[in-house]
């Protein structure tokens, strides 16, 4: 009988679910949001429908991400550092350093044999995270999805001197008022975020190959700005939002395999999709 493994990555901005056996059978990415966060079970349900599987057939469920602690239907919670490491190790085995730029934090992870051996994290300041671009995009009246492409058309990217997101927003609006072309401002913003992330990750002694994951990896402007900082290209998984969820599913598989080898029975949560209790 086939075994199926689910990984659910409840991030601050997006909720990601992956169902795997030998490969990814189904994946769903949905916004977390204040209301959606309580409805992580629905994202899971959607993934089960896509995979054409009843929940009872899932052998093991691992939750990761910001809201992992309160996913009641998960069998185990594992940190996003470990899950990202496992996911990237599986997708891009040649990678030694992972840079993950999420909606609310950014992190650097050092890999050896596909497992995290060191990490750094910024969860204190919105600068250096997806939130920085989100907030400044709003200030500029530009759609977040257009920011990356627009940054590539910058001819003379301006220097954004404020590292604080709130003040940077004021600064870019002032630059706009001064008549600085929009692409140059957006280019400057991307350089600022790349510089901040780079200076944090440098603590790890960055080794090639470097992978970029998280929502930040979907922004071509940020990818290019980081490549400029690093001085070489980075690798981006096919769907950079899913690495944590894939890693979670794979770690679930590892756990089940190890338990089977030891002849142990693993405790499992009830296979009933309940609301995540993040806010309660």
């Amino acid at each position, binding site marked *: 009988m086939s075994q199926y493994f689910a990984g659910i990555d409840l991030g601050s901005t997006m909720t990601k679910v992956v169902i795997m056996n030998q490969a990814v059978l189904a994946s769903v990415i949905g916004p977390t949001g204040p209301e959606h966060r309580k409805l992580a079970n629905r994202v899971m349900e959607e993934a089960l429908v896509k995979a054409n599987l009843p929940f009872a057939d899932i052998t093991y469920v691992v939750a990761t991400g*910001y809201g992992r602690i309160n996913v009641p239907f998960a069998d185990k919670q*594992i*940190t*996003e*550092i*470990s899950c990202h*490491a496992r996911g990237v190790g599986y997708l891009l085995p040649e990678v030694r350093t992972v840079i993950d730029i999420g909606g609310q934090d950014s992190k650097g992870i050092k890999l*050896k*044999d596909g*497992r*995290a*051996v*060191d*990490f*750094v*994290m910024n*969860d*204190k300041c919105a600068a250096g995270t997806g939130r920085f671009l989100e907030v400044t995009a709003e200030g500029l009246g530009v759609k977040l999805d257009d920011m990356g492409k627009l940054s590539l058309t910058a001819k003379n990217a301006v220097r954004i001197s404020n590292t604080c997101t709130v003040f940077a927003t004021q600064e870019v609006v002032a630059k706009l008022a001064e008549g600085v072309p929009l692409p140059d401002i957006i280019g400057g913003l991307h350089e600022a975020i790349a510089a901040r992330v780079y200076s944090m990750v440098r*603590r790890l*002694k960055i080794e090639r190959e470097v992978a970029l994951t998280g929502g930040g990896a979907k922004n071509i402007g940020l990818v290019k700005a980081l490549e400029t900082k690093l001085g070489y290209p980075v690798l981006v998984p096919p769907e950079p939002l899913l690495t944590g969820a894939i890693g979670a599913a794979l770690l679930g598989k590892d756990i089940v395999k190890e338990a089977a080898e030891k002849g142990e029975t693993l405790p499992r949560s009830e296979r009933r999709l309940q609301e995540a209790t993040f806010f309660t």
Partner: protein
Amino acid sequence: MTEEKKPEERKKRRTATEAASRIGPMVKATIGGTVQAREEGKPIAYSFICCCYDEIIRAMDIVPVWTENYAGVCGAKRDAQRFLERAEAENFSRSLCTYALCGLGFDAWREELGEMPPESPWGGQARPDMMLGSGQMLCDPRNKWYQASQRYMPDVPVYDVGLPWPPYEDDYDYREVQDYYVKYIVEELKGLVQFLEKHTGRKMDWDRLSELVDLADRTWNLIWETYELRKAVPTPMGTGDAMNTMVPMVFMMGTQEAYDFYKELNDELKHKIANKEGEIPDEKYRLIWGGGLPAWFALTDFNYFNNKGAVFPVETTYRMVEAIYHFDIDLSKITDPLEHVAWRWVKFWTYWYDKAKKRPGSHPDVERLIQYIEDYKIDGIVMHEAFSCRSWHVGLIWQLNQLKKVYRDIPSLILESDIVDISSYNEADTRARIDAFIDTLEAVKSRGR
């Protein structure tokens, strides 16, 4: 009405040793004792820890009020914000040392009221008769804090003791200049004695001072020997407890009570080791608290580490002694008590210099970490960057990078918050980082299996 708010008291940290559990009541009694001393008209001095003048004030029966300690108590009781806000309202920058801000806010409030602020933690900080600065090379509030306090207490005199030590350079021997430093410190201490005699009307009892200096030497040795016991596997005591047991070391040096405390701790640890009784039942990871003052409001994080199987057999923070008999000078031959204290000071701060010089690219602080990692069989390093304390924390990341460069790669975790300001702290994020760190420790360990 922020000033009226009284926050809920934090749940107490679980201690592993009986000795550590006695510290809270001891500190409370000491702080209460200073208020009582004020009422009885005994001379009271605001003082800094690691000040070099412990035995001097004890010999003259001056009651110290350890202002950093009181700020830490306010932080630990999660009741510092109202004092920080008060200092900010007095135009002190929020980015200054929060020990100083808390103290200044408290003093401003107490002086305005003419009595302790409402519901002051543990009865409040007594008004001093004098304030004794203790400027180290690396901590500017120790020079400036009490001068700023004079805004509220202009009648209270300040004496600022300069306490330098030779800086580390890998291409010269500090011994070439050590005599000058000792001479300078002795002069500073002489000036302090004169100041104290003038303001208390008491004469220094030099014989008693010598006795207390000798007692402090013996206490240093005893502490060193006691802390070395923590090398045992499993370790009988962790850093969480050490953040308590440091109290007699830094607030009661030169007293028999301090010596007796460490004798009892020594006995307790030996008993635990004989019974293979560790801080936790199943010790999986041995960590070093590699720098940074603790977040006093979050000491339960040490229990969180413990719950994950992690212990801290050693720390660099508040390990403010070395074995006197390891110094390259026989202190027992220095009979002048002020000179004796000055030499002890210089030898303590230069203790790791020679070792550092032997390893290219190293540094005394790095060398100390390496030695502890080896001696205590350490798996990972945890440091705490307290945003408001630049002087002690500014070099931590550099130290970590150098350590990895000149020694070996070792899992490390940097926690970020503050010593007193709880608004800098997020428990969920901190614990998420700890979880991730434990994962990396496990990954590294399993690779080595």
